[in-house]
């Protein structure tokens, strides 16, 4: 790897933390109980992955995981715009979930082959849990594609999110991801410009403001 590994770790950690937060927004209000449980569990897993990734990055950067998760200025967050979006609408939630998990699988596969044993080991551990996220997303894609209304709403949501999804990965990994998505769908997706990681959606500022409120109110360190 030519980039410092902390750079890469922060991209991953920020994606998982922010998506975990977005998933947790369904806790208590998902369309039915099973999905309330599913999205709450997925959120818990993603935030667990973020913590481990921040811990590894923190060792390289001489700081700690909480400081990386909560104390950086907004301009330093590297999460992809796809996970920043607030979309409390079921078809868009499922579309983002499936797009993200498909992209994440491509990325994790590559990291598992990394020469860096710590990165490869952590990627392997994360992958064990992500398998179940993908199965859940795939189950929903099957379900939505099976009925005309579901298919229409999924297609609309995928068209809206497609440029965002392409921005999760770069280069060859992006191409692999796009090919996997297109192969699974009975309809096409356009060739569009990817929305890059350095873009910050307005919702990100709101999210960070809410997420860090306790941390900011107890700067010497809250314990719970």
């Amino acid at each position, binding site marked *: 790897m030519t980039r410092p590994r902390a750079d890469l770790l922060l991209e991953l950690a920020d994606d998982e933390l922010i998506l975990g937060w977005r998933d947790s927004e369904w806790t208590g209000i998902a369309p039915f109980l099973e999905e309330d449980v599913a999205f709450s*569990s997925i959120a818990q*897993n993603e935030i667990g992955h973020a913590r481990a990734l921040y811990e590894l990055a923190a060792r390289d950067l001489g700081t700690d995981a909480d400081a990386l998760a909560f104390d950086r200025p907004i301009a330093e967050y590297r999460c992809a715009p796809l996970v920043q979006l607030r979309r409390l609408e079921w078809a868009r939630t499922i579309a983002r979930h499936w797009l993200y998990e498909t992209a994440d699988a491509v990325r994790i596969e590559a990291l598992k082959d990394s020469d860096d044993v710590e990165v490869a080991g952590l990627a392997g551990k994360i992958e064990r849990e992500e398998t179940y996220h993908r199965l*859940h997303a795939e189950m929903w894609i099957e379900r939505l594609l099976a009925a005309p209304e579901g298919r229409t709403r999924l297609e609309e949501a995928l068209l809206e999110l497609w440029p965002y999804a392409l921005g999760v990965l770069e280069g060859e990994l992006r191409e692999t991801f796009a090919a996997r998505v297109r192969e699974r769908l009975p309809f096409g997706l356009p060739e569009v410009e990817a929305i890059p990681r350095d873009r910050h959606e307005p919702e990100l500022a709101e999210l960070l403001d809410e997420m860090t409120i306790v941390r900011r109110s107890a700067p010497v360190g809250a314990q719970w």
Partner: protein
Amino acid sequence: MVTVEAVWEALAEIPDPEIPVISLVDLGVVKSVEIEGDRVRVEFTPTFMGCPALEAMKLQMEGAITALGAEPHVDVILDDSWSTDRITAEGREKLRVAGFGPPTPRAAGPTTLVQLQSKAFRCPYCGSTETRLDNIFGPTPCRSVRYCESCRQPFEQFKTI
């Protein structure tokens, strides 16, 4: 001076914070125990990474080692060495008796939806394999929810990871 055996015995007495029928040693999260003078170094491999019980497990291990008169060093190892295959045979039986479906052995490839929807999972209450997947996710990250068509009882099935 404390011995390696005494530490393993003490750790085997610590119940899992969320599923107390099984011990931390049954769960296979203790990777190694080493003694260096008065210091005891334990390598601890977490299960699910977002599991809130992990911090409690670490504190309990430190407490048990301190109680033996040694200084604990519990290192959290974030590599890929823990899988549900590390749960001991005794641990699996304890889970089943308590009404949980123990994790099935890991297959060569990744778990598939077809496998989860298959009848390969046995009801811990009546032993029937006529069970169906209700939800991939359950009360904690480590469990799914299944329903037994034979005894009409929902049960929690440990995920295989």
